């Protein structure tokens, strides 16, 4: 009797307590998920006039060279940003984990870019990169390196943007990796010391394998955010820049189609493509993780 009353009350409180969040997620996430698929088969023009378009948005995508170029750019961003961010944040984390004095001061300073607004940071970097008055060219000039137009030269603009993303990401990921490294039991290192292992050996055979679960986490989140690079490009490259096509990411191209060119149906199809790609990458990562992630 009391049992069944308890069950009833559990049922009530369960649904009652998940209701606000689940209703909100339903309206703003589940419904949009299906709505976006639906929209990708329509033409949605100015004033949201909607017309059935069948597969035409997808067909258009296949022949849209700008779209393919932005997809290529996105892969370049991922391939540059993710490895550099991971290696540098792991390096800083490992160095901070040695008995350096002022570890907490270093941690705080490295973390600052992680809590600052990308828009603000991009504005400053844009100024540092400026071809005529930028301090970067001036400093390089002191070493006899010729000036460059870091953001308007289509050949190098993508790398300049990637550098800012890496610069922003290192502190954040370093904090997570450092916590992972500090969670490794000291007894492993003591045992290795008794066996006469040096710091490099310890890193290779203890730190690296045991930090792989954290590394996997950091890699997954960096991958997804690199695939969706938008803020830095939007803030650093003007819409009339000659470097636009060679720096535009899929998300930026999606944004421009949806909110600048008012081609919302086509933009939905682009979002679908991004969704499918990220799903494939996530699945691939899950499969590959068994090969290198060590769950002890």
């Amino acid at each position, binding site marked *: 009797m009391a049992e069944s009353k308890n069950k009833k009350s*559990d*049922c009530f*409180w*369960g*649904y*009652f*307590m*998940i209701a606000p*969040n*689940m209703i909100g997620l339903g309206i*703003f*996430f589940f419904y*949009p*998920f299906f709505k*976006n698929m639906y*929209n990708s088969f329509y033409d949605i023009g100015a004033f949201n006039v909607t017309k059935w378009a069948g597969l035409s948005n997808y067909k258009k995508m296949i022949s849209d060279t700008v779209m393919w170029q932005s997809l290529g750019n996105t892969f370049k961003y991922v391939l540059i940003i993710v490895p550099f961010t991971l290696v540098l944040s792991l*390096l*800083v984390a490992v*160095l901070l984990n040695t008995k*350096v004095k002022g570890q907490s001061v*270093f941690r*705080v*300073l490295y*973390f*600052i*870019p992680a*809590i*600052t*607004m*990308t*828009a*603000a*940071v991009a*504005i*400053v970097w844009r*100024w540092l990169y400026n071809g005529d*008055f930028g*301090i970067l060219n*001036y400093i390089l000039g002191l070493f006899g390196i010729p000036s460059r137009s870091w953001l308007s030269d289509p050949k190098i603009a993508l790398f300049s943007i990637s550098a800012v993303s890496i*610069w922003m990401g*290192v502190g*954040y990921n370093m*904090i997570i*990796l450092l*916590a*992972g490294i500090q969670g490794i039991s000291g007894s492993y290192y003591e045992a290795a010391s008794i066996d006469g292992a040096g710091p490099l050996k310890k890193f290779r055979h203890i730190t690296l394998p045991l930090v792989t679960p954290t590394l996997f986490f950091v890699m997954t989140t960096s991958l*997804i955010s690199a695939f969706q690079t*938008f*803020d830095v490009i*939007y*803030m650093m490259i003007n819409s009339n820049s000659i470097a636009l096509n060679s720096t535009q990411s899929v998300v930026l191209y*999606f944004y421009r189609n*949806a909110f600048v060119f008012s081609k*919302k149906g086509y*933009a939905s199809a682009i*979002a679908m493509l*991004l*969704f499918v790609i*990220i799903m494939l990458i*996530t699945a691939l990562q899950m499969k590959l993780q068994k090969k290198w992630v060590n769950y002890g």
Partner: protein
Amino acid sequence: MFAAVNRKNNFKITAVFIYIILIAGVLVTISPFLWMILTSFKTQSEAMRIPPVLLPSDWHFENYIRIFDKLPFGRIYFNTVISSVVTVAAQLIFCSMSAYAFGRIEFPGRNAIFLAMLSVLMIPSSFFLLPQYLIIQKIGLLNTIPALFMPNLFSAFGTFLLRQFFISLPDELEDAARLDGCNHFRIYSKIMLPLIKPGLTSLAILTLRFSWNDLMWPLIVNTSADKMTLSAGLSYLQGQYSTDYPAIMGGACLSILPLLILFAMFQKQFIEGIALTGIKD
């Protein structure tokens, strides 16, 4: 004995080497901010001088006043604060409630609903943007303050994060309270919520960082200057007054200041809060 001395020297050399790398890294990390602050006090011609001048000859505080002439900056500041505070508060309440239910109450369909919710986590956030925009447009909220925070009041990630904390609390706490006749809501609000403070702090920090800094959503929904947030305002400032570098840098300084101050006050919580997200299970 020589070997021992050698070894000690080796240690010293390694230590020096480590400091050099770390300090070089700090310089690269910090100097753009210093340059931003210094430039914000220079005159326009000083800012553009080659070779560059490090310190402004006079400290031109009026650059900061000029920002307020160009944009309703005070209003924009206020919008950002309101939007961030509402987002953080709502997520803490909604996520912790649903996290408690998913973690500690058995009800029919719980696992299925939880899995469905997790699927939201796998999907790139830009995928939801356009339909979210169309919803806000349909209910007539474009160019309003609620538009800034509406979709972000709810979170699958926050629920997932807090559920881990609720699960890790011992069952005895609950059993004792239930014998005393407490219902689930009381157990949640009076007993368990105070015990998962680290989780709440972590979620608050991550959400604050996101909503304060987010660019694309506020850019899309609010186009009139007095309804913008700081990120969108900076992009507007740069687009309209691209050559007034000191004022733009001043705007950037003002925009990042509140989070920097909070970070200075709560360093430990910020760093631990972020670090926690990597240690799941």
